[in-house]
């Protein structure tokens, strides 16, 4: 089932173009997007970070040394932490290393943020258009169009019930 938060965000902020512009959506939601500084030791091994800074601004950071698709997914994932209120004054910071993006992540916030990211980057309407109208059924091709990894596309299609292997 699609997350209502994603639907609302897409309805209000998505320009119906592919690939989904996460940075643009984040800025429309008032979330600042920044690059993780490689010079800070604490950032070693991190893929992304979602936090509320000292001024109360919502910020997401991503590691720009990773692949483009991974960066996009990280941004969407961190945006999910903000949109789903995982990051709040009581819990102002979420640090995500590569394990949190794995489907085996045991923390429910991470799983929910992964779900959010998948639904944001691969909107249901766009997937349906590709499958039913444009007749594209190749995972690699779909992944390229949505600028996500093949694995992400595989899971998305599986969750939507189009891949029943």
């Amino acid at each position, binding site marked *: 089932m699609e997350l209502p938060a994603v639907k609302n965000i897409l309805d209000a902020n998505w320009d119906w173009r592919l690939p989904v512009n996460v940075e643009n959506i984040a800025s429309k939601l008032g979330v600042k997007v920044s690059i993780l500084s490689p010079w800070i030791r604490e950032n070693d091994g991190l893929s992304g970070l979602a936090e509320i800074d000292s001024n109360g601004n919502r910020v997401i950071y991503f590691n720009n040394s990773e692949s483009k698709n991974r960066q996009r997914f990280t941004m969407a994932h961190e945006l999910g932490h903000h949109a789903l209120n995982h990051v709040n004054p009581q819990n102002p910071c979420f640090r995500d290393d590569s394990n949190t993006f794995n489907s085996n992540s045991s923390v*429910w916030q991470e799983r929910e943020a992964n779900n959010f990211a998948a639904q944001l980057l691969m909107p249901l309407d766009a997937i349906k258009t590709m499958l039913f109208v444009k007749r594209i059924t190749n995972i690699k091709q779909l992944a390229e169009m949505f600028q996500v990894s093949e694995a992400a596309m595989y*899971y998305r299609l599986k969750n939507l019930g189009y891949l029943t292997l």
Partner: protein
Amino acid sequence: MSDENKNEGYDIAGDVGGSNINLSNEQNSKVIRFNVLEEQVYLGFKIVGFCVAISIATCFLIKGLDISRDAIMHIVHHQAAPTKQIAGTQPVNKSEKENSEVKKEEPGSMSNKILYSGSIITLVAFILGTGLTLLLTIVKFSFHSRQQNEDNPNVALAGPASELFMALASYIKSKIK
């Protein structure tokens, strides 16, 4: 429900993904094509089902109304016949007073006829109502999403009033929780 289990039931689309997934594109494409085709056929059947249900419902309604009209006319005819007969066999030497009484009864007799036909109309309306409810259920299911909340504890009922009752029941239930 524990925090860890909150999202159980979903395969989460991790960008790095699991290592055990089968990304054989040819095989996956075949499966996707099949599922897309299956959904299209399902949608086609839903459209056909909807059109057939609406057509039958329309015919049913027209036929029901026609039968109701015939039933009323039949009763009116039968009730009017003895009156005419009585009127025809009236003795010629009947007083003017008696004749005027018969004439006075005629306008009032229409309401009696409607009163007598009431039970038949009720019966026809009941049959119509039952049939239309069944057809509405088919129509409702043709709009029903395939993957919609399977864990919905509410019993599926047809009609907007029942939806309202269900929403009200859900609201009360949420308040009690």
